[in-house]
């Protein structure tokens, strides 16, 4: 991929990779923060089960 970039872009890419490797990353997501997607999906599955059982 790098070979497809201009020298200026290759230099910029290196700078960015260095920055990311040094750990300048966005805030990480903690395991407990999965509660919202899991809870909503759980409610939806329950809703589907109740509807299917009622048919």
């Amino acid at each position, binding site marked *: *991929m790098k070979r497809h970039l201009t020298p200026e872009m290759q230099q910029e890419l290196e700078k960015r990779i260095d920055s990311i*490797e040094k750990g300048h990353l966005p805030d990480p997501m903690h395991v407990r*923060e999965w509660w919202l997607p899991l809870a*909503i999906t759980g409610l939806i599955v329950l*809703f589907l089960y109740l*509807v299917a059982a009622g048919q």
Partner: protein
Amino acid sequence: MSGERHVEREVYFGILPVLRGERQFGLLDFILIQVGFGIAAWSFLVGGYTGFVLPALPATAAILFGNALPLLLLCPLAILFVRYGVETFIGARSSLGPVGSNIFLVIFAVLNLGWITMACFMLGESAIRVVAAFGGPESLQSREIGAPIFAIVAFAVAWWIAHGGPLAIKFFIRIGVPAMFLIICGLILYIFAAQGMDKVLAAQPSEAYDSMRRSLASAIEWNVGLGFSWLPYFGQWNRLAHSEKSGVWGTYLGWGVVLNVAAILGALTALLVGSYEPTEWMVQAGGPLFGLFGLVLLILANLTSASVLVYSQGISIKTVFPRWNWTLACLTAVPAALLMLTPAVYDGYVTFLGYVSFIMASFGGVMVADLMFVKKWRISIRDLYDNDGGIYRYVNGINWAAYVAVVIGGIFYFWTYDPVADRAGPLFEYITAGIPTFFISAVLYVLLARVPALTGESGSARAVA
């Protein structure tokens, strides 16, 4: 163009990783963007088809389940793209290999042509009804001549907007998203004020399958197809998220939950009017004045979505061929115009969804399993950009373990459900097809990733230290 502007352009056009300080989207921005892009022809149509085979409550449950579960399953990938600020097809090099990722890009580009066709052809359908309302020429009122002409003209406009880049898209989204919300509000008013809740709940589907179980399984499968279809679009938005939580929650809530509002309204209206085609029920439901207004909004909304799709394709192509100029990258979307020449592709929407479901469920299963269980969340960004793939070189640039798992997942899918003939296998009514395909591909991949003949000896299929 100054050096700084050039770098900025390359960042937003997808090639360079986006650094922490350059991220633009918080949670709310994220949900709005996802919904703005996501609510279009495909959500109204999938809702309409669902309401065609199921009564209101099961239709609602099928839509919610079919869209939310695939998004939950795919969401671990959002973390990869947010963390490293990379686009889908650069991130996919870690699991598929550099050549394997390019093959996935070609598959995406072909399917993307189908989605562009859906948006533009629905716009064409809306336009011919507007022409009919004003007593225009008969040829322009027909599906065979008028709709393709309007669809292709719309595609040319969408292409031109997308060619303008993210700023033009942002401006257009400001028109398209409110247009969508006006349509939805109008439908809510129609359903609750004009019809009443009791009538909606009692309405029976006009083309249900022989058994309720089969209707439910088919409707879930169509919605699962839409849910998994977002996989290739994950990277381009998540790389701009402020935090991993914004990316995961925004992706799940935007595409998995909020988007369903349009599909549910499509289903309820289809139940009341007996048609899955929004351009048809818009006029039947709203009468000449409101119906015409709705059609104009539908035109705007689909134009917005078509522009975003062309832009997405251009960005993805640019990530693999950075030296291509932007015009050439956008021109790869032009074959979509051929698919708009007849209503055949548009009318085959549920078959199309079946193909999308099996392809994206298989690839999604492999990519998620690779990130969580093989790479254990640790990716080398330097090797993602390496000329020859670095530690992600695999065997001649392809992770064969991934592709074998994808193919076996596909065979299982077609054994369970044939979307062309709409033929269900023995298990389809109990487990459907797309979701088990995801799990089968994922489990197979984890097992096959231990076979060096398939993954190479470079340690490609292991986590970096």
